[in-house]
């Protein structure tokens, strides 16, 4: 499809906020869909790629996620939180479902927040303001993660990005289940405390 196929009024969609774009999807506004993809396509791709570790599978999943939104825009309820965190949560959950259904053939490895920080900045998002906002948030979240003891951070990442349950983490790390549970709670408490302003931002 060429950009010329989109009507002039639809081309102005890039200036609309996420909620308005989602509302327009209900009216089959292809320009709104295109604007959403341009805004978040790379973020969704990066989220599922981190979990799946396979470019082809990640691309197929990005397609599935965006077309699902196109088909059922009502699945997003604005009152429950910001669109971007809903979208990345949906992407994460779908990717985790995929690795679970494949019997965990994928191997998940964690890298330290410091290593990830060194990889900055690479965002290729069209909107400069959004790019700056997401980059700032990423730095804050990585900084919060860096303040958590390694053993707690590792378990949080294995659960969230590896799709492992506490029981599976205990087996994989050869740790008592009680230890894993305690580290999940302590790590999340510290993360929540460090990210209080960001967590409040998510509230509607």
């Amino acid at each position, binding site marked *: 499809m060429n950009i010329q196929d989109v009507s002039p009024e639809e081309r102005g969609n890039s200036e609309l906020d996420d909620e308005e774009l989602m509302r327009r999807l209900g009216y089959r506004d292809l320009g709104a869909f295109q604007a959403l993809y341009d805004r978040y396509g790379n973020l969704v791709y990066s989220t599922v790629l981190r979990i799946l570790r396979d470019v082809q599978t990640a691309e197929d999943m990005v397609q599935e996620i965006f077309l699902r939104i196109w088909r059922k825009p009502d699945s997003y309820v604005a009152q429950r939180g910001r669109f971007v965190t809903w979208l990345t949560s949906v992407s994460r959950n779908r990717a985790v479902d995929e690795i679970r259904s494949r019997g965990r053939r994928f191997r998940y490895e964690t890298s330290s927040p410091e290593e990830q920080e060194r990889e900055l900045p*690479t965002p290729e998002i069209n909107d400069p303001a959004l790019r700056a906002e997401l980059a700032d948030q990423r730095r804050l979240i990585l900084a919060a993660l860096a303040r958590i003891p390694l053993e707690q951070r590792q378990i949080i990442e294995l659960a969230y990005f590896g799709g492992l349950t506490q029981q599976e983490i205990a087996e994989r790390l050869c740790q008592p289940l009680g230890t894993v549970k305690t580290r999940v709670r302590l790590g999340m408490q510290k993360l929540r405390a460090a990210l209080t302003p960001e967590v409040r931002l998510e509230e509607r």
Partner: protein
Amino acid sequence: MRDSSEGLDARCVEARELVDAYALGALESREAAPLQRHVSDCAQCREELGKSQRTAALLSLSVRIEQARPRLRERILAHAEKERFEIPGWRRLVPSRRVGTRAVAFGGVVALVFAVFLQAQLSNLRGDNGQLQDQLSAASSELEQQRQIVAVLSAQDTQKVAMEQVSLRSQAESVYNWSPVNDAGFIVCRNFPAPAPGRVYQVWFVAGGRAEPVATFLPQNGGCQIPMDMSRMNWRPDGIGISVEAQGGSSRPTRPWFSYAWFNEASSGGGSHDMRMGIWAAAIGP
């Protein structure tokens, strides 16, 4: 954790120990189901779970941004273009709060006009003799159903969940709307295939391993509007399912779900796959 558990009853203490793991999707389904039931009744624990889920959701924003190949964009937009007019927007069928008050008002007016029409029909029927008793009863029932739908549509707290269709080949779509204030909800559906002779669709509320029958229906031209009065229910369902059953309905689901929805899936920080499978297991039963 010790400080935050002071003054809480035992179930809340237990729930608080699980909310973080649940938000990360790290609970086994057998642990998640009791937590789901508890937070549906406990506002404080629900709030704690919400904070954990919002924290976990932020983790997604920590990923390093990779550049997807341009051809992926072209592929997705081409698919969307192809489907553009194949899937009518749900809003034309079911106004939601996000559409704005005008659309909600329109939906309410349409349903009200229909209710008035039915009321007139009812009055006419009352003027006739007893041979019209069946029609009177049917019209009265439809009128009550429309009143329930109007109540849900016009409520400020109306929520909606698009139900999953199990068959990938099916064109069927269904949405569950409900209003906690009105203790009422309804399902709208479209493109539902006619069931085999002697069979009907049956709607179920589900929680844990329990499934309660709600209503049976046959789609009209593929569509349906099934109202549900929940005012007499003394338990809170975790999900809703539709299965195909023998005419007259069954006391428990005997076939796999045709479609279903898990109410907390959208807001769940994880475990959705397990939850869905849990409902499936409840449907097909041991």
